[in-house]
């Protein structure tokens, strides 16, 4: 069985935010509510300051605390290891947002980060919380794909609407194979310096497996026991602790 995972090479990431922009377009994200962000961390001070660009999608953990705390099983893990939210079951208690150590979840009905509120400009109809002029054709509430209904939590789906259509047994989804490009997650497909890789973590011959093995892939916040399926490569794959400026 395929276990989808991602590898992000921090030595190659330039912080261009193309991945975030592609994700916004693909998933109709609102400002300030990006499924995928390129954060940056500053650490240490003069004379040895450090600044790291840090792409952060949902980690699609092996042991997702968000799933374990969900009182309705709205958050679930597919057989292929993708963590999704079933909007038909979500009651909007937001406990998953509390329990996610990576801060990658968003509640639909939040105060807008910028004015005018885009949702007011394109008001929703029926079940949809807003109705943008462009939206993907795949509205799939059971897998948390598309425009959110009111009162639910949403998150990165690894572009489930794309990867779930990939041919069975595919080891890697990359731009290299034109036949597979349509199935590549938007952030991976758009990454200009090819800092992102997406493939089957259970397949020893996949590129993601080889990269993790050869370059000692690291997972974030291992002490929480969540075991992310997103691995980081590079000397900077350590997140500094919180500092108050």
């Amino acid at each position: 069985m395929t276990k989808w995972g991602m590898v992000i090479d921090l030595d190659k990431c330039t912080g261009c935010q193309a991945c975030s922009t592609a994700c916004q377009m693909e998933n109709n994200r609102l400002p300030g509510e990006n499924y995928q962000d390129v954060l940056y961390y500053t650490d240490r001070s003069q004379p040895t300051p450090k600044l790291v660009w840090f792409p952060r999608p949902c980690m699609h953990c092996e042991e997702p605390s968000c799933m374990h705390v969900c009182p309705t099983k709205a958050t679930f893990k597919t057989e292929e290891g993708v963590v999704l939210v079933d909007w038909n079951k979500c009651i909007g208690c937001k406990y998953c947002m509390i329990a996610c150590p990576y801060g990658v979840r968003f509640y639909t009905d939040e105060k807008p980060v910028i004015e005018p509120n885009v949702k007011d400009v394109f008001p929703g109809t029926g079940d949809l919380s807003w109705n943008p002029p462009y939206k993907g054709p795949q509205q799939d509430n059971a897998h948390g794909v598309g425009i959110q209904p009111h009162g639910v939590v949403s998150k990165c789906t690894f572009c489930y609407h794309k990867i779930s259509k990939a041919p069975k047994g595919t080891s890697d989804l990359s731009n290299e194979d034109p036949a597979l490009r349509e199935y590549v997650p938007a952030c991976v497909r758009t990454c200009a310096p090819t800092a992102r890789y997406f493939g089957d973590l259970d397949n020893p011959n996949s590129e993601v497996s080889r990269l993790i093995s050869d370059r000692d892939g690291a997972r974030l916040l291992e002490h929480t026991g969540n075991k992310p399926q997103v691995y980081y490569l590079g000397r900077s794959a350590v997140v500094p602790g919180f500092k108050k400026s």
Partner: protein
Amino acid sequence: MSTITNLAPDQASISRISNLRLMVGVTGLVLGLLAGIGLLSGGHATFNTSSLLTWGLPVSTYVFFVLTSTGLTFVASLAMVFGLKDFYPVAKRCVWGAVVTLVIGFISLGLEIGNPIRMLWVIPTNMAVTSPLWWMGLFYLTYAILLFWKFHLINQGDWSSQLSKLVGIASFVAVIFAHATLGSVFGMMAMRPFWYGPMVPVYFLITAFLSGLAFIMLFINLDYGVNQSNMSEGAARAMSRQLPAIFAIVLGLVIVFTIAKTMTGLWTNVPENKIVTQHIASSFLFQFELWIGMVLPFLLMLTAKRHEAKTQVVAGGLVIIALFIGRYEYVVGGQLVPMFKGAWADGLIDYTPSLTEIGIVVLAVSIGILLYAFGDKRLSLSDQPNA
């Protein structure tokens, strides 16, 4: 007002307080409904919570009131489960108070949740047993049913049948589990060091008991016009002798707990605990909570005036305010450090409840006040079993 002047002076003060309570309840209801209109038109976007700080004032209010309900059940159980007969005169009032505070908590949470109606079918049909929240829901539902049942039984005059005793014990056990799972909702969150720890359910247990005791100190005295000579002999004995002693002991324990938690937080190097504790400890709210809300009432309970109704009203009121602040600090404090936002968020999250959030609390509390007033007028809350 003419009726008041025709009554005996003590009855007049009882009526005055009762009318005042009604007025506060109705005013609160109107203000709360105005906020409710804001919620209906703007939805949860009218809250000041965000993806960074998810649970705000309505959740801390929920925690405060359901734990108060727990505490009131504990006080009622002193008579009905543990056989301390002196507490029978206040037992029915405690049970009704527990019902009312539970309702306030549920309203506050219900208006905070995105799809509360959906809960009715998705929770029972999905059996998410790994979730502390699921268990909390189960136990609080069980507790609510047993509590209503117990009140119904004693309201019918059935204080001591086998069934009544059994329902009383069962509701006591249910609320122990309920409050413990509520503690686990926070205490199991290893990713939030400010909350994390196995002692949280114990902390909730002690503070819940204190909350119940403080409500008794304040509201029962108010119900009798802040004059214990208006009470039955048994009720006056319970209020003036045992209650201040139990209140002082539990308050002392809570003070120790609060100081210990603060000292631990200030000493540790874990940023999510140290920085947040520094932030809270240096705030006016915390200083008020500790010194005015806890230490001062504790000192009052050490004086000879602890038996007097006025002292008890002041002490009970201050402790209630302190505990409400404490719940707010606890719930919000666990979220003040931005979760994984890098240098974009390099300070603690700034959160002040919005008018809608405050309105929800006002609405829930005023419904509670009116429910309690209804009970006081119609349900003979001073009843006790015949000797």
